[in-house]
């Protein structure tokens, strides 16, 4: 029996690892650090996890929000989303995912020294991370999009997620997406 116990534990651990692995290795190609950083936690209402490997997706555009928000942003898309952008396909097809990364904007003394009169701004720490996932059936009530916002790897509150769709509604003509593809 003593021999069986460790085997059972090993099997249980292996089974857990297998359960843990598939949802985050779907996209493939991500580094080990990405896997470890991907939480199992899901967004309220929409049930979304952080898609694996999103940091390596193609760039849709960059952006900035001024005022007290004071951030720099990057919008990345998976292959389905980027293809739709380039071909002008609207609505976005099922499977499209758009990631919005944002960081505090900070000054760069090192860059300013090299640039003279030019002021350089770079990114500090991340603020939060947002995703829109297209599934026209599952998310029929919210324009076909599921929404998620993560701060420090953890999904934000249900109250916050209730504000996603109403805020995106004015962009109905472009399938609820504000971001345009940067030339």
């Amino acid at each position, binding site marked *: 029996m003593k021999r069986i116990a460790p085997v059972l534990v090993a099997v249980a651990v292996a089974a857990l690892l297998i359960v843990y692995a598939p949802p985050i290795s779907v996209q493939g190609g991500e580094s080990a650090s990405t896997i470890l950083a991907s939480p199992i936690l899901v967004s309220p209402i929409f049930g979304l996890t952080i898609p694996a490997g999103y*940091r390596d997706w193609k760039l849709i555009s960059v952006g900035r929000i001024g005022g007290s928000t004071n951030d720099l942003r990057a919008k990345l898309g998976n292959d389905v989303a980027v293809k739709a952008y380039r071909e002008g396909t609207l609505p976005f097809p099922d499977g499209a995912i758009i990631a919005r990364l944002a960081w505090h904007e900070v000054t760069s003394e090192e860059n300013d020294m090299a640039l003279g009169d030019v002021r350089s701004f770079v990114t500090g720490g991340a603020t939060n991370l947002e995703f829109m996932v297209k599934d026209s059936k599952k998310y029929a009530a919210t324009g076909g999009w599921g929404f998620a916002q993560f701060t420090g790897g953890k999904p934000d509150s249900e109250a916050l997620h209730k*504000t996603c769709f109403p805020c995106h509604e004015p962009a109905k003509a472009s399938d609820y997406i504000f971001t345009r593809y940067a030339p």
Partner: protein
Amino acid sequence: MKRVAFLLVAVVTIAGVAVYVVTPSGHAAEEASPIYGVTIPPGYRDWKLIAVSEIATGDKSQLRAEFGNDIAIKAYKEGTLPFPDGAIVVAQHWMKESSPGNDQVLAMAPMVAGLDNPKSFVPGSRVNAQFMVKDSTKYAATGGWGFADFKDGKPGDEALHKACFPCHAPAKDHDYVYTRYVP
């Protein structure tokens, strides 16, 4: 004879069309940067994102994205310095424009309630694209990097390219590259 002449005209026309079609699709910008002879690497807009940034001079600003080919991204992620031969880093610059449409939405958005003056900025027209190509043998005199600055697909002049390396020299500790990878 008339039939032969017609055929000849047709053949010449087709050949002309073929030459016209093949040339632009082969390498759109065959023009190389002065001093370094660097051409625009095909497909760089789809490369992985290193970072985003902003530059301001007077009342004009740019939003910027830095991309890397796979060799550069791998070196960034693994902290490899100096960058290995074959690494290419791109800085794509756009004019920073305000987005009145986004501002309207932000003013109503419940999630930004309490935030002071959240103004949206997006990329406008392209300004220029800059490339750094690592070849420690070919570019030994300039830290192993070849430089290029293109505007609308055309390389800048020799005077401009003479300014590249001196401006990057202060970043010697980071192999002459200012941009850091943003996680």
